[in-house]
């Protein structure tokens, strides 16, 4: 992939409101995941591993942590002189300013960035999905099909197909129909929200869409149906592998648990397509004399004196003596004090569970417990 042949626009402005307390003060792409990563690491690493070195990151909701985390992009080898990471927040102009309204609108407001870089292709990505993908391979498919737009799709179980944007395609991959959450799906290929557009077509289409009063300015809802109706060449790119959009607390918890066990569904240890992150320099994890740890991921800077089972302890998490942590995720800096009991819970960054306090329930019919960032749970509060 030569330079500027393809640039990426990474949509990272979403609130992720269904993640509740986890996104009360950070954007969803900045939510910690897997012990030492943040969700946006996966998309940025995919870019770097695919040779895409010009990435515009569109931010909006609670951007501070996200901005400081991305920094110059050097953690993902994206601190390039000609390109690299550019953070693209909403901005003011002589005629006023506007928030990003919808995914397509966010890109429309940054057409200047695309035009400045003048690529042949534009890759549109979400900053809140967990997967490994070689976008270069997707681009090769796009070119081979002589496509106008290529949409990454993955097969989903038929009974769940009505929850997704479903694409119907011919044998050669050419898309004939797009249906948003169809009641009676005639295909089980779900759109992953990952698109490669011919840049000229994208610019032209977005300009038209911006003037369309009836459009909600969304790629799935407006742009794809329009291009289909116009008879453009839309193709699928089939992806088979681990892919999650951790939209809810329970899917966040479930996906975290997918990293555990003897043969995890998602192998974060792979070195061929490494997940890079802007990690802090912390000493190795310390395991105390009376600690018991089983089937868990423990990041640097952690201290464990109690019992940890089937859990993820992120950077600088702390589990005190006689404390128990089971089926849980401790985000960076979370503290479980002596004698506390945490089961099926997600503890936010720098949150604290005080001594001998219990959080969460083994009862799987109950929701996963969530403690927000910086929250202290004392006696009688939970």
């Amino acid at each position, binding site marked *: 992939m030569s330079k500027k042949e393809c640039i990426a626009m990474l949509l990272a402005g979403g609130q992720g409101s269904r993640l509740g307390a986890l996104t009360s003060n950070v954007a969803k792409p900045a939510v910690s995941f*897997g*012990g*030492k990563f943040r969700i946006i690491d996966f998309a940025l690493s995919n870019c770097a591993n695919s040779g895409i070195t010009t990435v515009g990151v569109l931010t909006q909701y609670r951007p501070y942590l996200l901005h400081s985390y991305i920094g110059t992009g*050097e953690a993902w080898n994206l601190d390039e002189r000609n390109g690299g990471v550019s953070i693209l927040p909403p901005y003011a102009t002589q005629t006023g300013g506007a928030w990003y309204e919808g995914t397509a609108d966010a890109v429309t407001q940054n057409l200047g960035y695309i035009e400045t870089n003048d690529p042949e292709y534009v890759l549109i990505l979400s900053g809140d999905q967990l997967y490994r993908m070689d976008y270069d391979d997707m681009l090769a498919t796009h070119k081979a099909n002589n496509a106008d737009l290529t949409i990454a799709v993955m097969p989903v179980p038929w009974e769940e197909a009505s929850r997704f944007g479903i694409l119907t395609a011919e044998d050669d991959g050419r898309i004939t129909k797009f249906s948003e959450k169809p009641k009676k799906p005639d295909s089980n290929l779900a759109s992953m929200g990952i698109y490669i557009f011919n840049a000229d077509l994208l610019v032209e289409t977005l300009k038209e869409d911006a003037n369309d009063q009836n459009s909600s300015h969304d790629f799935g809802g407006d742009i794809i149906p329009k291009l289909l109706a116009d008879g453009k060449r839309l193709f699928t790119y089939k992806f088979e592998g681990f892919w999650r959009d951790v939209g809810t607390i329970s899917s966040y918890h479930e996906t975290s648990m997918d990293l555990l*066990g*003897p043969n995890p569904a998602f192998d*974060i*240890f792979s070195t061929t397509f*490494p*997940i*890079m*992150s802007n*990690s802090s*320099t*912390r*000493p*190795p*994890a*310390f*395991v*105390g*004399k*009376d*600690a018991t*740890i*089983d*089937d*868990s*991921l*423990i*990041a*640097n800077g952690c*201290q464990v004196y109690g019992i*940890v089972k089937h859990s*993820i*302890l*992120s950077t600088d998490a702390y589990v005190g003596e006689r404390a128990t942590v089971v089926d849980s995720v401790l985000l960076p800096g979370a503290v479980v004090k002596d004698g506390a009991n945490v089961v099926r819970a997600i503890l936010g960054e720098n949150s604290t569970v005080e001594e001998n306090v219990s959080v969460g329930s083994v009862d799987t019919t109950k929701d996963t417990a969530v403690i927000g960032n910086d929250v202290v749970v004392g006696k009688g509060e939970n």
Partner: protein
Amino acid sequence: MEKVIGLITCNYSAKESSPLNESRPMASLPYFGRYRLVDFALSNFVNCGIRTVGMVMPYNYRSIIDHVGSGKDWDLDRKNGGLFILPGSAFGTSRTGARFLLRDLVHNKVYFTRSTSDAVFFSTANFVYNIDLDKVYEAHKASGADITVLTKTASEKDPDVTAFDVEDGRVCGVHHGTAFGETMFLDCFVINRQLLLDMFDWYAATDYLDLFEAMAGDFGRVNIRTYDFDGYVAPIFNKRAYFRANMDLLDPRITSELFVEERFIKTKTHDTPPAKFEVGSHVCHSAVASGDRIYGNVSDSILGRNVIIEAGATVRNSIVMQGCVVKSGARVENAIVDRANVVPAGTELRGTPEDVLIKEKAH
């Protein structure tokens, strides 16, 4: 600390030869799972705001350069200042007791003449401690000393550590090897830059000496004062000290002092996932670095990054460095297993607590 620059001499090795430092300079010796010894000198410098640091290199500098790179991880990739890689003596000094050989400093005179700084902090890479050098520099300025040396009262004898004779906080003699109760030199001092340049002229005829040896007759003229450090200090000049300084960090009180929040020890960062403690593993009283996968038993030990301890394997009272694999049923006890070793299934690597076994680097 804008008006101060730093210099680290990385080219003096331990007297005692061991497989650990045959293959690398002491500066790049792995320490506590993810660090290298030089991280402490570098971090102490940059944590007090020094952004210009020279490193005098030994002949086998590959692993040091590999580690420090452009200095980015220590914020030393600066437009002005930053990291300077300086050549060391070509030969003949690697096993002397020298710490700051005049010849090495004079050889790199331009590093000091081009600077506009008031003072220069010096350090070797053989000590582990975390100190606020701002306070040392404040004391240096307040006392009006020409040189302020960092010292501590020795709690045991160490033939490799330099000692000072001190009267009323002023140095009046220097000798090599420290006895219990003497004032040991922590291989770190600050000197006014102009005085340093003057000394290059004063001692031009004896440039084969260590700076403090060269000064030996001048302690009446040069005002050298001590600054006593009361924190954790580990001089690392031999295998025994190296092993103990690692194991010391299994005491959380020492670890929390060394890795204090406001002055974090910086090191090269890597993209390794968190350590995975697999089903059936047993780990207690150990430090486990990222990327490790543990299926077996580990106690009283320190594991470097990307180590695999297979099921049924046992590691006790040992240091296992980066990239090693301890195969099923193997046993490692009282040992230092250097990088990238594979300990075959069912075999043993066993030393004694008094004399740990060293398995040299595999490649």
